[in-house]
């Protein structure tokens, strides 16, 4: 790794930088979810699937904290990153109502450990599960595993069919994209656990089991998916926490671990081995 991009205290990781982020686009993609595109050269060049940015909004607002948002896509050539966000509180309301193309924000990025990539030659099968906004950090994951030659399937869940996010990206690289909706307007009528249980079981029965499963979405959804996992299959999750510093210093974002102790979601995560997390304490 080039010396000037290596993290000062985490060897082998590209350092996060504070960079200007000019807004190229900011628009709704479906009810409740927006897509923001930012010119952020360092993050666009170096982000790997599963990392996030810590976005700063106009400093004259009443708010002191940045907003951590996973990188939905990183376009190296265009030097742009895409973020998906839902309007759920004061900061995301400001993002949807007050930020327009041409605005100059800033962000710290890329941050975090990222999803694991395949080992070896593309053997095995991957299953990527994205519930709600959890689809955002796993689209690049599916693309990366498929590009490495691993057969990849996906499960996307949402309240209703029109809220399924970024299905085209998954359909472009996955063998199967299963859908689950709370209201039954598409696919399985229920949570992602319905197709998850079915697909894992049928892969096992066929003698062609999934060897890597990634799950991302609200914590209760991830907890329920992890409970369904067969033994011995590698599974990762991405933990979303409230964050203050976003760089590993303040200890606001800790995740309790099954073996005791804690890790920081920002820099030790946000990706964790599914069995490492103390789900009862989350």
């Amino acid at each position, binding site marked *: 790794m080039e010396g000037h991009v290596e993290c*000062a205290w985490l060897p082998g990781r590209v350092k996060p930088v*504070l960079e200007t982020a000019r807004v190229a686009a900011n628009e709704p993609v479906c009810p409740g979810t927006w897509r923001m595109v930012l010119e952020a050269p360092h993050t666009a060049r170096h982000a790997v699937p599963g990392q996030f940015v810590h976005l*700063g909004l106009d*400093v004259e607002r009443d708010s002191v*904290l*940045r907003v951590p948002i996973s990188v939905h896509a990183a376009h190296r050539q265009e030097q742009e990153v895409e973020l998906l966000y839902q309007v759920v509180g004061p900061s995301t309301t400001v993002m949807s109502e007050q930020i327009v193309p041409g605005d100059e924000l800033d962000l710290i990025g890329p941050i975090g450990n990222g999803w694991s990539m395949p080992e070896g030659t593309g053997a095995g099968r991957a299953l990527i599960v994205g519930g709600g906004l959890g689809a955002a950090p796993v689209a690049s994951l599916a693309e990366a595993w498929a590009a490495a030659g691993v057969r990849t399937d996906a499960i996307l869940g949402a309240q209703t069919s029109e809220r399924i996010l970024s299905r085209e990206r998954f359909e472009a690289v996955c063998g199967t994209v299963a859908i689950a909706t709370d209201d039954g307007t598409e696919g399985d009528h229920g949570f992602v656990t319905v197709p998850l249980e079915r697909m894992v079981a049928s892969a096992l029965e066929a003698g062609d089991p999934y060897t890597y499963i990634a799950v991302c979405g609200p914590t209760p959804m991830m907890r329920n998916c992890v409970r369904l996992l067969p033994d011995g299959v590698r599974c990762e999750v991405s933990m979303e926490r409230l964050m203050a*510093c*976003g760089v590993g*210093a*303040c200890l606001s974002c800790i995740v309790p671990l099954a073996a005791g102790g804690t890790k920081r979601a920002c820099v030790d995560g946000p990706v964790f081995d599914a069995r490492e997390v103390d789900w009862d304490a989350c």
Partner: protein
Amino acid sequence: MPADVNLAVNLGGLAMKNPVTDASGTFGAGQEYADFIDLDALGALTTKGVSPVAWEGNPAPRIAETPSGMLNTIGLQNPGVEAFCAEKLAFLANYSVPLIVNVAGHRIDEYLAVIDRLESEERVDAYEVNISCPNVDAGGLAMGTDPAMAREVTVACRARTKRPLIVKLTPNVTSVADIARAVEDGGADAVSLINTVQGMAIDAFRRRPRLSRPVAGLSGPAVKPIALRCVWEAHRAVSVPILGMGGIRTGVDAVEFMLAGATAVAVGTANFTNPRATVEVIEGIRGYCESQGIADVNELIGGLQC
């Protein structure tokens, strides 16, 4: 051509090349900020609180954003003094910035255990004793809320070290001046203030506190007026130098604290908004002095006219 502004100050025996340090708890032991600033640009680096053994801290949620600030109930999570020496001091050996180690304890002998262990570590330059910790030997009452207890902690720590001893005061008291006088009397070389202000945040729809503990610590711009008032009151009460903090974001904020009586300042919550806040405050102080024709930043200390 005017000479450069002198920014150097002396905080109770700790020579600082400029008045700015970070506020304990917002900056780890510095390494996570090394990607954003040159740690050696700081007047001093203040670590997170160090206890004799590892403290786990509180469950999540540990923070809540509030108007112009935030509440935290981290719970002083830290790996304990041995791990601090093995891990954090090793990284800081790469830098020469003066090092203030913040010391935490639940009883007086815990503070002493940390100081005793660090006395043999050459890298450490000064101690900041956090007396906002509850004293389990006194029914959980915070050490720093009672002048006699505050004095007792200070006397005990004073006996263990010749290094600059800074005692960090809590604003959650009736009289900051009384506590400041007590720790000055106990032998403190300097006082730092303010620690966080006790506050709450409530989720009206879940009908629960937003944090894992109902009462947490408020920091950020919302507390600046309280912090300035406390610094001013302490300055009128004691002669030892003051390290002022509470909502500082800019060089002008820092100047306000110096005018109120602070010799040095700490930047805390602002690091979350801007990881370069510390160095920008240093440059802001320099810019203020240049534009005001101030040759030496020490002219500002206690310079408030009223």
